[in-house]
């Protein structure tokens, strides 16, 4: 065993994921801006022949930002903060350290294959679970390795109690594992047809309504266990650490954790309101979506109150800005979601642009802001350098915030407008608008949305530059900063 003087936390795996987060962020969000622009200006569909249409690019956008950008951010945070709250260095566990790097390689391979296969149109067609069976197997392997690493690190911990973040990481691991396995049950056709057809093709184990049920049990909870649970894990670590304030209430965090775990899974049915799944399930989905406000706001309020007495940091430290706004957006979207899950509201909102609007105030305002803050908090520690530019971070914050606001306001208006037009009838009870009327009317909102997205993307480029310069040209630090990240 090494002597204590030499023993430090090992950030090598975290660093790898930090870079992929930046790269996938740029790729995924650039595609996002392109497809947003295609809705406003359809000519942009023809830049890359069959591979450049909106329909082909959309799953690329969603998958790259979810499984590329967000998962990278989560893994970087995990391999950084789990060491710290468990007080065990990866340098002490050489095999686990190796396994973590192997996991990263598997990740890169899976991500590359995913991008290629979606580009070629090879897809199982279930949203956020488009991967065909060979890729599914690779992803299961990847996930299992993560589990092994997590529990090996936990087993070697010096701190007896698990910190709040660790609860959420464990939940993320278990939740995704369970849902992913069930939703991706599929039968490869080549084994049952005497070797006919494409080897990667498969059919779902479930048909029709059942398939929908399992898919949205997954789809909704992919949001829960990728976009919520691990991001909460991040904010429970990074906000207290960056601000130097202990979490406001550990008891409240206990309450909201178990509340969230119990309630979240029930709410998947709200994606299927007014569909052919049984009424009582739809009602359950609705009710639990509303109940879900409690544990969600529990975490968010806990975060905001952590800043109690230290609100001056909000003006002084851009990272605190990012994180406080992230928890505020978390509150916004966890209120908006339940509203949309009310059956009468859903009748108007479903199938319209209000839904992508809702998704994006969550992911742009909450998930991505939290990932940016986490990456920038980790950068000075991982690279032992000062953050390259504070003013660039400030500017990024305001540009992106403007972008998000433009995005969701335009989509709210677009969604409600279209929802109302679909059902509008004249005095004789005839439909007032043909479908195309309800599309043409959206042009200005699609344009505003594309501009909002573009602003956000500009912020991402600023971030990438700032991050790159921090890693390569920031002023060298003598020792690891304790709380507030130093920035020039």
């Amino acid at each position, binding site marked *: 065993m090494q002597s204590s003087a030499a023993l430090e936390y090992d950030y090598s795996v975290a660093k790898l994921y930090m870079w992929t987060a930046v790269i996938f962020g740029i790729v995924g969000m650039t595609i996002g801006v392109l497809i947003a622009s295609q809705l406003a200006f359809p000519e942009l569909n023809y830049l890359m022949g069959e591979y450049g249409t909106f329909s082909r690019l959309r799953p690329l956008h969603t998958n790259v930002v979810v499984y590329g950008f967000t998962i990278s951010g989560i893994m970087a945070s995990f391999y950084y903060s789990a060491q710290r709250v468990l007080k065990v260095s990866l340098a002490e566990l050489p095999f686990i350290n190796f396994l973590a790097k192997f996991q990263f390689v598997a990740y890169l391979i899976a991500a590359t294959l995913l991008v290629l296969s979606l580009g070629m149109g090879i*897809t199982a067609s279930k949203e956020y679970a488009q991967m065909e069976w060979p890729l599914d197997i690779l992803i299961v392997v990847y996930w299992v390795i993560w589990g092994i690493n997590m529990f090996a690190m936990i087993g070697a911990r010096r701190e007896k109690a698990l910190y709040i973040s660790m609860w959420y990481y464990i939940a993320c691991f*278990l939740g995704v594992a*369970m849902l992913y396995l069930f939703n991706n049950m599929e039968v490869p056709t080549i084994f049952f047809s005497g070797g006919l057809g494409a080897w990667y093709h498969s059919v779902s184990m479930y*048909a029709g309504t*059942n398939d929908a049920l399992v898919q949205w049990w997954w789809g909704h909870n992919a949001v829960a266990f990728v976009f919520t649970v691990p991001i909460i894990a991040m904010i429970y670590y990074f906000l207290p650490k960056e601000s130097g304030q202990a979490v406001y209430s550990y008891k409240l965090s206990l309450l909201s954790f178990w509340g969230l775990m119990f309630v979240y899974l029930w709410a998947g049915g709200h994606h299927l309101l007014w569909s052919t799944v*049984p009424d009582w399930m739809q009602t359950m989905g609705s009710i639990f979506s509303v109940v879900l406000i409690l544990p969600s706001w529990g975490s968010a309020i806990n975060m905001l109150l952590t800043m109690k007495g230290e609100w001056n940091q909000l003006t002084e430290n851009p990272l605190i800005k990012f994180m406080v706004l992230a928890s505020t957006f978390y509150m916004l979207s966890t209120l908006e979601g339940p509203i949309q899950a009310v059956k009468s509201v859903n009748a108007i909102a479903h199938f319209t642009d209000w839904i992508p609007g809702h998704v994006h105030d969550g992911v742009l305002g909450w998930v991505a802001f939290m990932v940016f803050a986490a990456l920038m908090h980790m950068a000075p520690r991982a690279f032992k350098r000062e953050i390259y530019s504070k003013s660039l971070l400030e500017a990024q914050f305001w540009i992106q915030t403007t972008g998000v606001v433009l995005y969701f306001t335009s989509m709210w208006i677009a969604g409600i407008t279209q929802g109302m037009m679909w059902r509008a009838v004249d005095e004789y009870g005839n439909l007032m608008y043909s479908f195309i009327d309800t599309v043409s009317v959206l042009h200005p909102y699609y344009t505003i949305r594309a501009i909002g997205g573009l602003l956000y993307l500009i912020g991402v480029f600023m971030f990438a530059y700032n991050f790159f310069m921090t890693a390569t040209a920031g002023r060298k630090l003598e020792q690891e900063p304790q709380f507030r990240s130093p920035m020039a």
Partner: protein
Amino acid sequence: MFHWLEKNPFLFSVGVFIVIAFAGLIEILPNFAEAARPIKGLKPYTVLELAGKEVYKKDNCIACHSQLIRPFKSETDRYGKYSLSGEYAYDRPFLWGSKRTGPDLHRVGNYRTPDWHANHMWDPKSVVPDSIMPAYKHQFKNVADLETAYAEAVTVKNVFNTPYGDEIQPGKEAYEKYLKEKALPEALEIAKKMKNKEVLEMVQKGQIPEIVAMIAYLDRLK
């Protein structure tokens, strides 16, 4: 939870798993016995239609089109009878979609002709001047993958007892026989309705372009 649980990673994980699995047990499982029954008279997709469904998936029409008519007057007026669970019994995967940038397609076969689809897929603006849908001209050139569709039919017949006739059998020979005797004549009929000479020539030469399969599938949605 009670002070000790957060110190026992194993018990903690078991606890989390029970709490999250609970909802699925009560909410998801019971439906499986009920919902898989087809409505009376529902026929499984022909291989050509399945190939069309693959094109629908490949070009990801689901990004903008739903296949689910909700039970509101405004929807039944616009699209036709509201959707029933049993109509989806052979849909693997389900293709309800979650966004209507374009209209619902669950009964599009009732009110659009193959000729209309052909024009629309070649250039949407030629039939709907304000359309923002991209053209899918490549579907007129790419050859549809009938073999994979046939493999799918064999699989669902053998694994899920989907009621296909004896003509659906594993193996290359059975496939080629089916292609010649069933799929090509079916494709030819559609190609004739499309008024597109190149497509017709392709089918007559024994090659089925994606657009023909696609229209077979769209036409089947009723």
